[in-house]
């Protein structure tokens, strides 16, 4: 059975990120970032979570590196949150108790 975790993270920039994730055999199997931030292109933002699939949850450096990599792509625009907030939101979710 996959482990499920969630977190709500409030950015100092004023907007909120929610993370829902699943861990299967110690690896991220499904990560979804949602929230009330602003960004473009909208369809690209689903790819942040998708890019983390298969990463070992104990390898935090690699997870963070992948998030950085996403925001380095040109044409990604975000407001109300910063790339760092996605990292903090994910860290918070990983630390949280398992979710039903």
């Amino acid at each position, binding site marked *: 059975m996959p482990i499920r975790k969630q977190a*709500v993270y409030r950015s100092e920039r004023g907007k909120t990120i929610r993370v829902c994730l699943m861990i299967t055999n110690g690896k991220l199997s499904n990560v979804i970032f*949602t929230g*009330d931030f*602003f960004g473009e292109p909208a369809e690209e933002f689903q790819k942040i979570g998708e890019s983390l699939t298969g990463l070992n949850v104990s390898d935090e450096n690699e997870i963070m590196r992948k998030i950085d990599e996403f925001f380095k792509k040109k044409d990604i625009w975000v407001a*109300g949150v910063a790339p760092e907030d996605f990292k903090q939101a994910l860290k918070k979710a990983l630390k949280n108790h398992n979710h039903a």
Partner: protein
Amino acid sequence: MWLTEGRWRLLEVERPEDPYYNLAVEEAVARAVGEGVAPVTLRFWRNDNAVVIGAFQCVSLEIKLEECIKYGVKVVRRFTGGGAVYHDIRNLNYAISFKRPSPIPGDNILTGYRVVGDAVIAGLGRLGVEAEFTPVNDIQVGSRKVSGMAGTLTRNILFIHGCLLVGSNIEVLSRVLNVPREKLEAKGVGSVRARVATLRDELGREVPMDEVKKALLKGFEEVFDAEFISGDLTSWEKDKAEELYKNKYLTVDWNLGPCKGCPHKDRDTALFRRVGLADQKASGLQI
């Protein structure tokens, strides 16, 4: 050409009973302006009894779908980010679309909220309501929000829209939105009800919608030093709106949004099918 002429378009196209169409028009107009086939456009419009969710939000976390079913509230996802809002016929939506580079200083969305906020605040001042801009994207009277904005910045569009609580039913609003505790705490309140106010609350009277529109229009004219001429959708916009309506805003895929891999997707889809079902069937929602 449009900018130098200082004559911009005022649109009042709305189908309050069909929030899917209203959002399709919203995006079609923004695209037309971005493509340079329509002038800078200010639009006033209303939904009747709908939740409009932000582009990046999760329907089941942000909205109480069971309550939406109970109150006959439809749910539609917009193309801009930001938080979920409740619209009824006593809420007024305003939207302004610019082709980039826009007259907003820095061509920047966060400054855009401030400048468009100034226009709305100037309009509210004419009604006797003293409001102020609260970053990131709110307009408040004291500590209570009367209007929230959202927007987007693409290669060729700077677009901002917002909703203004003229006399909305706050009871329904507070029942259908599921605002996270973390967000309410950051705003220093314990409930949605304590966080919002209507113009009716502030002025102690029902304010006719035409009076609100006239006041806001003056505010936009003042702040942007522009003259707005009443117009209609172009055939380009009508075609684009129809396409977006059918292929985007009437689809469950778009409205359920970013949570494609969510383990609760089947449950959410089943619930979503029951949200405003009769009307969705009538309007051809692909469910």
